[in-house]
């Protein structure tokens, strides 16, 4: 379904290279790390993945699905004067280790186009042995509940808020 958000917000979802992805640790501390997000306009959801070498995000989500994604660094996006956007939502992270790119070809292709130096991790047998864990992935799907955005990325002003009922 089409998400009724401004085109410039959707452009942020599609073009920003990273977002700051937060999950909740067992003691309730929000843990935030940069992630590569993929927006699926057909469902209004976000997909991302994490390696089983970095499984805490998935463990946190299985215990508490509340997450957020902040899009606040436009570096490399090619967007001029984009808004900053915070997405709060609920995530799922099934315990299924994926090692094939089947079903993710578009996303993997996009990563290599955006991050050409990333090919170094597969460049020779030693690097492939050293980094095979990185390619054992867990899929994370985020369903937005609330979207807040700041025109011109100006976080000193109050955001525009779109509640879940309006975002699909």
């Amino acid at each position, binding site marked *: 379904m089409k998400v009724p958000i401004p085109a410039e917000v959707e452009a942020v979802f599609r073009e920003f290279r990273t977002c700051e992805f937060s999950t909740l640790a067992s003691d*309730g501390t*929000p843990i*935030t790390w940069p992630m590569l997000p993929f927006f699926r306009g057909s469902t209004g959801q976000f997909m991302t993945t994490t390696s089983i070498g970095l499984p805490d995000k998935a463990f946190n989500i299985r215990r508490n699905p509340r997450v957020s994604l902040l899009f*606040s660094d436009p570096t*490399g996006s090619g967007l001029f004067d984009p808004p900053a956007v915070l997405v709060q939502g609920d995530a799922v992270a099934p315990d299924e280790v994926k090692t094939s790119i089947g079903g993710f070809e578009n996303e993997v292709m996009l990563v290599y186009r*955006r*991050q050409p130096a990333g090919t170094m991790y597969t460049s020779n047998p030693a690097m492939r042995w050293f980094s*095979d*864990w990185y390619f054992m992935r867990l899929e994370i799907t985020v369903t937005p509940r609330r979207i807040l955005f700041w025109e011109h990325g100006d976080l000193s002003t*109050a955001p525009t808020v779109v509640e879940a009922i309006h975002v699909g």
Partner: protein
Amino acid sequence: MWAEVRRHLRGFSSPVLTGLDVDGYPFSIRCSPEPDEAQQVLRVHLPGWARIRLGPASLLCHGHNQLLWNLRSFMVRGTLEPAGSETWLFRPTRFVPGIGISGLAGMVRFAFAKRRTARRYLERRGLPRPTIDWAQLKALQARARHQSPPHPVR
């Protein structure tokens, strides 16, 4: 730990502060922390409309270049408490290095540690270590190389 936070913080102008909002969801905002050496806390300005409440929090510093490389990151766990008006205190409790801030040795340690974590993940589920289809990945990389960049790089 405070010295480590101070040293690494210098390389980043606007870290991401994340706390919890009234509904229990993470709420992140960029901030400009000012170190308070006496209390060993970071003073941050949070606008009145910010939905963050006092309690557990974290501070993320990260960056990359136009081609999503030269990745750098670290995170600080801590707590957040109001200090009057729109000023809050972030009290660091743990420094967590990410990537790109500890040199080559740090990167090697990071990779070996993650290999071990991955092995444990598989062992606890009785799963064999899977084989990656490198040929499939290399073919995709070749296709990506022959496509134009996603957009002009600024």
